[in-house]
Structure formats: structure tokens, C-alpha cells
């Protein structure tokens, strides 16, 4: 039976209080740090999903988002590299639709069923922008979810699916637009969300001869904190007991990743035998019947939704958030050292920079990063094996915190870290508080954006305080 064999999620460390956006607005939304985007979040969710799993067995990576930094250039390849997946796999971006996450899921299920792949990873992420102060800005949150689809050791089988499409201008963002646009809410919800998801869910239940009471949990995409209740009631579900709460108070609507992230939240509470209904929305709806198996217990150690939501840091400064998103003109400051971008150099160092692979000397065993030609310890030439560092924890050996050099967020912490099991690296630290940075602090690695120049992005790994 085909289905979900593992899941993982990523919610950024930072939360912005809605009160900071509009007086009286309630709750908080998860926001990307200045060095995060949909690609880095998808990579983090993929790595969470791959915890303890043989990466060599993954045959595909589908990246789903409406906010890829590139209009022309694949994002999936960057996510696949950061997840240290094989090179001979299928990669594709599913874009331009809030439904991209479940579109990718359907394609992954079909690839497995057709036998063209054994395991396919779906990694969905979004960081959408609403006009400053708008309801959209208040409702949108940033995050990512990843599902590993396969036909062995399946934790959640996909019993069936049903899709409808619907041509409507309710929510859109044109090429060149920064902010999401919409028609008035009454029209959008009546003939968009409520009507369309309603059709998909009823069609699904009809197709598989199921009724609302057959489901332990119903996971519905919701445009805001309330609309899903109306939909659930119309469809005959008990919104108090049966429906997955959509996390608006603590995270917000994460776009293409939202249905998958809500599903993961539901799976964290699920037990073997539970039947779950999942439905997405975006110019149509994909609805699924899912069945939880005994295998679910084996993947519950993921950081997933619950632990990521519990690990957080508030940023009080709305202005800072706007600057990070490029929405507020800034005073011109003394330029830092000139950063240039070299595509050949970035390509040459891809194994180190994207996969965070160092090398291990086959003669003396010394682990070294970045990869060397001659061993720093025993001086043997060209006898190394690759060694993955992205999944290792580390400790700070020494550090600095720069309060002066222009940067999106001061102070800029830099760290020299020693990995558990060997290997040393120098890298920026992110997401931390100045007070907590000290020699000996345990850290882990996070894939981040380093340079954004001429529309091209350079990514690399930074240390972050271990998220617990």
C-alpha cells in the first residue's frame, strides 16, 4: 500500500505578535529570519523528515511553493542538495498555486504506484507577503512541511483521493507583484473556498462510500482562523472534536505548505487505525482518505510541528521585520566589504556548501571541513571519503559578536564549532540571543541564505542554538 513513510516540519524560530502589525490583533505568526526563505525552510523540513532514514533510498524530491526565489531555475535541486540526496533522482518544482503541496503529493503517490520510484520526498514551504498592516499580512505565517512517500513501512496509507478544479479570481499574485491580492471576502469565501473544498470533500466521501463519522480527524486548509469551522459544519463534521485546529494563534496560514503542516500536526496526535481526511484549497481542491498504521509510532520522534512551535523567540520590532522583507527604505550606510558572487566557485564547492559534506582522511581518520586535498594531520594526499556534517550536533569553541558591520540583524555572531564525532567549522550563527552565545554552547546546523545579489542566492550553513 502506498502512503506516508515519514514526516517532518519546520516552523521558523521567530514569531511576530499580530499586535505589532495592528492594534488589538490577536496571536502571533511564525516568520522567516532575514536569512531564510522557502528553500531553506523546505530543506529544514526535509532534513527533519529524513531523521534516521537512509537518504540513499530517496528517488525523488518535489518542492512545492508559491514563493520560490526563482522564476526560472529549479528550487528542488537546492533542497535536494541541502537534504544530501542522490543526484540520479527526479526533481521538480510545484509552483504558482496554494494547492502546490497536495499537487506534489498526488504526483509522488502516482510515481510510487507506477513503480518509477520507491520513495519520493514532498517538501512544501511558503513565506507569502500581505500588504503591510493588512489582514493577509496578519494571517500569513511562514513554515514548511515534508512527507516521504513510499510503499514500504507505510505509517499513513493513502486509501484514495478526489480532486476538483475551479476557475475563479479569488486570490492571486501576478508576476512582479510583491503582495497577494484578492477579490472581496464574501465572494471569495462563498464561491471559492467554501464551495470548492465542499465539493471535493463531498465528492471524496461519495466516491469511497464514507460518511463524516468514519473519520477520526479532518484536516482542512483554512484561509483564516474561522472559515474552516463553517466548512466543517456544512459538511457534517463536529468542529469541536473532529477537526484539526489550524494554528492561526501560533503560526498563521503557511500557503502551499499549510495542508501538509496541519496534517503533520494531526499525525502527531494520531494512533494506529485512525482514518483521516485531508483537503487543500487553491483554484480547486485535492481531498484524500488516509489511514494511520502501527508504523506511526516509529516516526513520532520527529521535531515536527509540536516541538518547532514550542521552540520560539519573539521579535517585538515590526520595523525590523519590514526591513528584512525589503519593504522599508533604509538609510544608506557605509558599505561592508564587497561581496562578489562566482557561479563557478559556488558550483565547484557544491558538495561542501550545499550538502555540508566535509572529508574524513582514510589514513588517520581526521574529519576536515571544508574538504581538503592534503590531510591537515597526516599530510596524506587525496585519500578522503565524504563525511556529512549537516546532521551532526556541535559545540562552540570560540565566537565573536559584531555590533558595527552593517547587517540585517545586529549583533552578527560568528562561531568556530567542533562537531560531535569530529570536525571543525567556522560559520555564522543565527536565531540566537546575544546573552546565550558562549564557549561550549551546543549548536546544530541550519541551511540559510548568505548572499542575495543580482537575483541570485548563495546558500550555506549556519550554526543555531539547539532547538528543543
Amino acid at each position, binding site marked *: 500500500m502506498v502512503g506516508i513513510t515519514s514526516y517532518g516540519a519546520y516552523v521558523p524560530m521567530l514569531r511576530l505578535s499580530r499586535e505589532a502589525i495592528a492594534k488589538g490583533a490577536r496571536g502571533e505568526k511564525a516568520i522567516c529570519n532575514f536569512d531564510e526563505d522557502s528553500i531553506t525552510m523546505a530543506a529544514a523540513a526535509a532534513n527533519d523528515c529524513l531523521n534516521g532514514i537512509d537518504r540513499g533510498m530517496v528517488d525523488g524530491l518535489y518542492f512545492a511553493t508559491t514563493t520560490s526565489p526563482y522564476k526560472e531555475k529549479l528550487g528542488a535541486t537546492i533542497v535536494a542538495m541541502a537534504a544530501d540526496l542522490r543526484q540520479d533522482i527526479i526533481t521538480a518544482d510545484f509552483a504558482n498555486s496554494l494547492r502546490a503541496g497536495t499537487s506534489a503529493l498526488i504526483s509522488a503517490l502516482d510515481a510510487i504506484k507506477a513503480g518509477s520510484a520507491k520513495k519520493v520526498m514532498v517538501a512544501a514551504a511558503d513565506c507569502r507577503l500581505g500588504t503591510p498592516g493588512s489582514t493577509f499580512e496578519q494571517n500569513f505565517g511562514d513554515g514548511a512541511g515534508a512527507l516521504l512517500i513510499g510503499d514500504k513501512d507505510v505509517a499513513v496509507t493513502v486509501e484514495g483521493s478526489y480532486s476538483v478544479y475551479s476557475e475563479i479570481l479569488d486570490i492571486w499574485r501576478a508576476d512582479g507583484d510583491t503582495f497577494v491580492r484578492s477579490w472581496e471576502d464574501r465572494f471569495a469565501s462563498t464561491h471559492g473556498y467554501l464551495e470548492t473544498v465542499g465539493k471535493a470533500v463531498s465528492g471524496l466521501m461519495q466516491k469511497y462510500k464514507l460518511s463524516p463519522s468514519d473519520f477520526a480527524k479532518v484536516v482542512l486548509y483554512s484561509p483564516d482562523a474561522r472559515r474552516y469551522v463553517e466548512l466543517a459544519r456544512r459538511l457534517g463534521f463536529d468542529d469541536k472534536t473532529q477537526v484539526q485546529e489550524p494554528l492561526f494563534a501560533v503560526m498563521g496560514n503557511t500557503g502551499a505548505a499549510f495542508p501538509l503542516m496541519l496534517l503533520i500536526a494531526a499525525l502527531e496526535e494520531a494512533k494506529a487505525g485512525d482514518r483521516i481526511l485531508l483537503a487543500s484549497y487553491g483554484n480547486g481542491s485535492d481531498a484524500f482518505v488516509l489511514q494511520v498504521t502501527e508504523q506511526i509510532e516509529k516516526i513520532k520522534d520527529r521535531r515536527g510541528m509540536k516541538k518547532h512551535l514550542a521552540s520560539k523567540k519573539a521579535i517585538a520590532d515590526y520595523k525590523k521585520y519590514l526591513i528584512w522583507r525589503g519593504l522599508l527604505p533604509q538609510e544608506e550606510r557605509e558599505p561592508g*566589504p564587497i561581496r562578489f558572487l562566482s557561479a563557478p566557485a559556488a558550483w565547484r564547492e557544491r558538495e561542501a*556548501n550545499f550538502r555540508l559534506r566535509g572529508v574524513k582522511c582514510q589514513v588517520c581518520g581526521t574529519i576536515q571541513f571544508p574538504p581538503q586535498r592534503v590531510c591537515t594531520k597526516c599530510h596524506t594526499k587525496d585519500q578522503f571519503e565524504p563525511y556529512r556534517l549537516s546532521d551532526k550536533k556541535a559545540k562552540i*569553541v*570560540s565566537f*565573536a*559578536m559584531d555590533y558595527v558591520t552593517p547587517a540585517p540583524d545586529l549583533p552578527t555572531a560568528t562561531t568556530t564549532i567542533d562537531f560531535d564525532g569530529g570536525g*571543525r567549522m567556522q560559520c555564522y550563527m543565527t536565531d540566537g540571543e546575544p546573552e546565550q552565545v558562549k*564557549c561550549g554552547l551546543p549548536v546544530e546546523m541550519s541551511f540559510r541564505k548568505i548572499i542575495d545579489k543580482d537575483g541570485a542566492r548563495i546558500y550555506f550553513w549556519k550554526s543555531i542554538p539547539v532547538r528543543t
Partner: protein
Amino acid sequence: MKGIKDRVAIVGMGCTNFGELWDKDYKDLMVDACYEAFEDAGVEPKDIQAAWYGSRESGFTGSHLANALKLEYIPITRVENFCAGGTDTFRNACYSVAAGIFDIALACGVEKTKDHMGGFTMDITEPFDRSMVEWELPPVSQFAQLANGYFNKYGLSYEQGKKILAKIAVKNHHNGTLSPKAHFRREITLEQAINAPMISYPLGLFDACGMSDGGAAAIITTPEIAKSMRKDYILVKALALDNGGGQGKLQSDYDFSYIPETVEAGKLAYKEAGIKNPRQEVDLAIVHDCFTITELIICEDLGFSPRGKAPEDVEAGTFELTGDLPVNTDGGLKCFGHPLSASGLRMIYEVYKQLQGKAEARQLKKADIGLVHNVGGVCGYFNCAVAILGKP
């Protein structure tokens, strides 16, 4: 290995004022530094048979020096070795004379930093990482790692550590007031140093040296020729240079409480000069105090203080003008200023003047053996130059 001891002599030196010299081009600095050296040595530009020119970002070939001084078709090599560039320039000129290839050679180091905002034009990490993913911050964040590493290793609280570093800044500011050519010439208090704005934790404004414009030059010849030129020529006792291979960045046994490159260069230099006990035998040391923590650590790396004990010597005033082993008598990089590749030659200039008894208000009573030290690069990946000079 014959070594360099007593095989070459300095017969003339020049040094420009250091500072924000908005009205001087790097060629003006070459002319000012070299003509002072020519006059001091009693030579003409036409007497120079070969030259070495040190610069990190102020002229990429020796031809700039030839053009400024109108040297007529002589060999000039440009030297770049980060902050050790000045001393390395001197070293190369000395070796050519010791080899018997030339009788009179010129070493000149110049840096015009203030034409660029912030003082650095080039990517700092670029030489190490072309793919530009390594962190890229000014040197202070490299050296702040040494401070955090040192404080951590010896259990110093931020307050304890800052106070020691502040004492070094106060000392070098005092010495700067006695150096007419220094960039910064005013006293500061301990409180000012401790409470100055944070630059890179734990280093504040007064822990950092000045970025300055400046140039310095030396005329090098054989001891035999030197004798015929002047009585108070100065002999070279040792020249050491070592380049780290990034061991500290790659290997986990480096703890950022010392600079192994300085330790190794010091050993080489002491061996060449025949120095057994540097604390006793060295009369003054002009060392690379790009940041106060660097001076503290260098004093241990060069054997002036036992490991972990330099703070006690700082407290005791050992490195002050009146102490047992005065360090940075001219104000150091801290106050004399730091025009990268000129600094090594400026340091040699100070030792030269002290050994000749011409250091005016900061003249030491006993100055027979002087040491010069530069360190450049990034944490865990330094290069280091040490020169030892003595009286005939």
C-alpha cells in the same frame, strides 16, 4: 644553515607621519618615507641597487615605487603577506644583501587605506574562499575570537578580561603621546577604555588599533659597508617568517587562547639570534597589537610571560616604558596607527631609533636588543614575522 645574524645592517630609515592623510597619495608616502631614509643613510636614490615594496592594496607592482622615486631600471619586487607584509618586505631585502647579490637594497612599505571607506578595499575572506560562504566581517571579529577563547580558557569574567585589555590600551595611548609621528596622541583612562562602545564582543572601540595611512623605509647593506657609512648602524640578528596552513581552522585541538604561528616564528627567531631567555635578553618589543587581546597573547607566545600569566605582568606594569620589558614604546598599532604593509617597517624604525638612542621622550635606558613582531590573516590561519635587531 648560516642564518642572517650579523650579516646585514640597517644604515638608514624613514617613516612618515601616520594618520588620516587626506592630502597624501600613496606615492607621496613612498617619497616621504624613502627620502628620509636616503638622508638618514647619506645615500642617493641612484645608489639603490634593488628594492622590495610592501603593499596590500596601494600599488600592485614594484613599478609604482620606481615611478614615485624615479629609480632607473632596477629590480623591484612587490611583497604581500597580509599584516606581516612590512616585515617580510624587509626580510627579502636583507636576504638579497646577505646573499651577496646586492650591496645596497631598499625596503619600503606603504599603505593608503583612507581612500576607501572603512579602510579595506578587498574581500577579507576572498583569498581563502572564492565561493563566498565563509563569514566575512572585519578583522575585529576574528580577534574577538581570541579574546573569548582566552577568557574562557583562563576563567576570566568579561569584567576581569576587559580591565586587563583596558590597561594595555591606556599604556599604548600614553606611549602614543610621546611619539610625534603617531596617529593618536592623547591619553585615555581605564574607564574610557572599559566603557567604550562595543565593536565585536568583547572588544570595544579602544581595544582596536587605528586604520591609518603611512609609509616607512629602510636602507640595508653589509656590516662592512655600514661601518664606513656611520657608527650607529644597526645589525639584524634574526628574521623569521612562518605561514600557518589553517591548522587552527581545521583541527579541534586549537583553543583560540594563543597564536601557534607566533610561537613558531618566535622560536625560529630566538634560535637564529641565540636568545635563550627572551624575558631577560630582549630590551624592547614592538609587537602586533592590532587589538589589545593580540598584545596580551603575543606576550605569552613570545615567552615574555608564562602561559596564562600575561595579565599579571600587565597589572605589574612590566610592559610599560618604565617596566622590565617595554612593549610598543611608540604607541603600537593601537596609537601609532596601522597602515597594513607599512607597519612592520614602522616597528623596525622604532627599534632602530631606540637602539641608536634617538627615541626622544620615550627613549629607554637600556636598548641593546629589540624585537619586532607582526601577525596577519584570520583566526586559525595566521602568518607571522619576527625580526630581532641589535647594536654592533
